[in-house]
């Protein structure tokens, strides 16, 4: 099962929920931090990293001894990533989407591909938890290809928790697609509500069942709760504001660290998610 933890609005507690959930469930669990622009889960998990891999995306390289300046490469490129300029062909690798079109249409076979570094993927473990995250290279614009690479490490049959980036555009879609369940984390404020509506919209586009965690549930107002009820999105957990939790977070401590009720509450949360996923699979099979 793959559970993607997402939010719309940033800073609502995605990482808190994803790390606590991953560390509370017994058995084989993997945590994939797909917020590759600003990955934070490792600051709480403190994994022992055993493998670091640089991830590259193919971009064109032109052999000018073969090039006849015909311009077909720049004609097919939608991203202005390869341009004929006077007596030379200039690739702009940072604009390239790696579609391979220029290489396909070059009549002289003058174009080959080299790699543009997207970032790194680091893999490790902590107490039996499998941990994988991507770190986008600073200056690199495109997060989705790196997110998809992180997700290639999903192993079937293992509970996989994904920490998704904020927002509702392509990086979030890359972190939610194909998940069995999206756990949305929000706060009961106007910003939280507005961005939650967008996030539910994105989840609906993908047709994935979802549920809600309301963090700092006693600040703000009741509009998030009313909206969730009207939309039929189940509220699976509420966490009241507690300065001690905020301070522990600031130091990099997880909610489930130490003794207390949190591990069992997160196991309960997982149980409810399992039930919803089973129900929705039954419904889908019946159709």
């Amino acid at each position, binding site marked *: 099962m793959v559970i993607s933890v997402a939010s*719309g*609005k*940033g*800073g*609502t507690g995605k*990482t808190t929920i994803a790390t606590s959930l991953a560390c509370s469930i017994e058995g084989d669990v993997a945590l994939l931090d797909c917020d590759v*622009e*600003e990955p*934070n889960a490792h*600051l*709480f998990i403190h994994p022992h990293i055993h493998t670091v891999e640089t991830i590259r995306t193919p971009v064109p390289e032109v052999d000018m001894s073969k090039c006849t300046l015909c311009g077909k490469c720049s004609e*097919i490129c*939608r*991203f202005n990533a390869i341009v004929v300029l006077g007596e030379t062909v200039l690739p702009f690798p940072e604009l390239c*989407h*790696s*579609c*391979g*079109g220029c290489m*396909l*249409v070059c009549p002289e076979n003058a174009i080959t591909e080299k790699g543009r570094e997207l970032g790194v993927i680091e893999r490790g473990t902590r107490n039996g938890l499998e941990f994988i995250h991507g770190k*986008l290279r*600073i*200056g*690199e*614009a*495109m*997060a989705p290809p790196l997110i998809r690479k992180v997700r290639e490490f999903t192993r079937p049959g293992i509970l996989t928790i994904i920490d998704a*980036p*904020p*927002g*509702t*555009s*392509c*990086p979030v*879609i890359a972190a939610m*697609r194909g998940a069995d369940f999206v756990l949305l984390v929000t706060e009961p*404020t*106007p*910003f939280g509500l*507005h*961005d939650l509506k*967008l996030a539910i*919209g*994105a989840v609906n*586009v*993908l047709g994935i069942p979802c549920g809600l965690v309301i963090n700092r549930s006693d*600040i*703000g*107002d009741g509009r998030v709760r009313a909206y969730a009820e009207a939309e039929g999105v189940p509220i699976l957990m509420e966490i009241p504001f507690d*300065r001690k939790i*905020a*301070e522990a*977070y*600031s*130091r*990099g401590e997880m909610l489930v660290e130490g003794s207390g009720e949190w591990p069992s509450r997160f196991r309960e949360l997982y149980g409810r998610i399992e039930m919803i996923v089973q129900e929705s699979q039954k419904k889908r099979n019946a159709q």
Partner: protein
Amino acid sequence: MKELVVISGKGGTGKTTLLAAFAYLAQNKVLCDADVDAADLHLILDPHIRERHDFQSGHTAVIDPDACTGCGFCRDICRYDAISPDFQVDPISCEGCGVCYSLCPEKAIAFPLNTSGEWFISDTRFGPMAHARLGIAEENSGKLVTLIRQQGKALAENKGLDLLLTDGPPGVGCPVIASLGGATAVLIVTEPTVSGAHDMERVAQLAAGFKIPTMVCINKFDLNPEKGTAIESFAAQKNIAVMGRIPFDPAFTKAMVLGKTLFEYNGDSEGAAAVRTIWEAVANRIYDMKNRGRP
């Protein structure tokens, strides 16, 4: 004309709340919400929309089943696995590269332009505003960020205003990169947490790559003064100007719930005093840059 872009790296550190408070304090300015992916500034500024435009950007391939012979060439060349075995294009996977459209031997593929959002020119109680709404699950947010900043600048020029206050997106990827080019200065709003520090370092590195003068302020400073002080020391080492500390103050959330800026809700609150001091320091710096004839 000067542009201050407020960014954070980590989401939810208080960018928009702070920018709305600056909107109350600053003179002769245009507001710009460049967090097009999850725009929230309008919830406080309550804009009266004067102009509404479609945002058209990018294309998606569509296969005409009547013209398609099922040769499979498009599936062979598509690098995004966007075409199913029965020759349907999945619009979410389609990158809009147009390679299939250009090379289909039957010319059976159309490649229409996408309407992927809307952008607006509005009036607010604090001055004109440029803002946008990216469609759900859409791409090209960087292009929309660029467009909305251009519109903000044009608005300022037309109205003879000399400051653009831009609410930037979180992260370090495409929308943030699009929000930085050509800015006069950036202000990073962070928080004294392990995540806040980590993400601030990454986004500061990005701003340094653009050679943009960078400032930082720390929200909810008293949550972890030790961490806050460490962030300030880091900033000093990296030539990032430290603008001040904002205390944890429930007035911020209360103001937001009422759709007000902090000053409209309670100008005497502890948080308001801190924000006023920070704004004065930031404004001084921006005007100082002007006096030196910086871009």
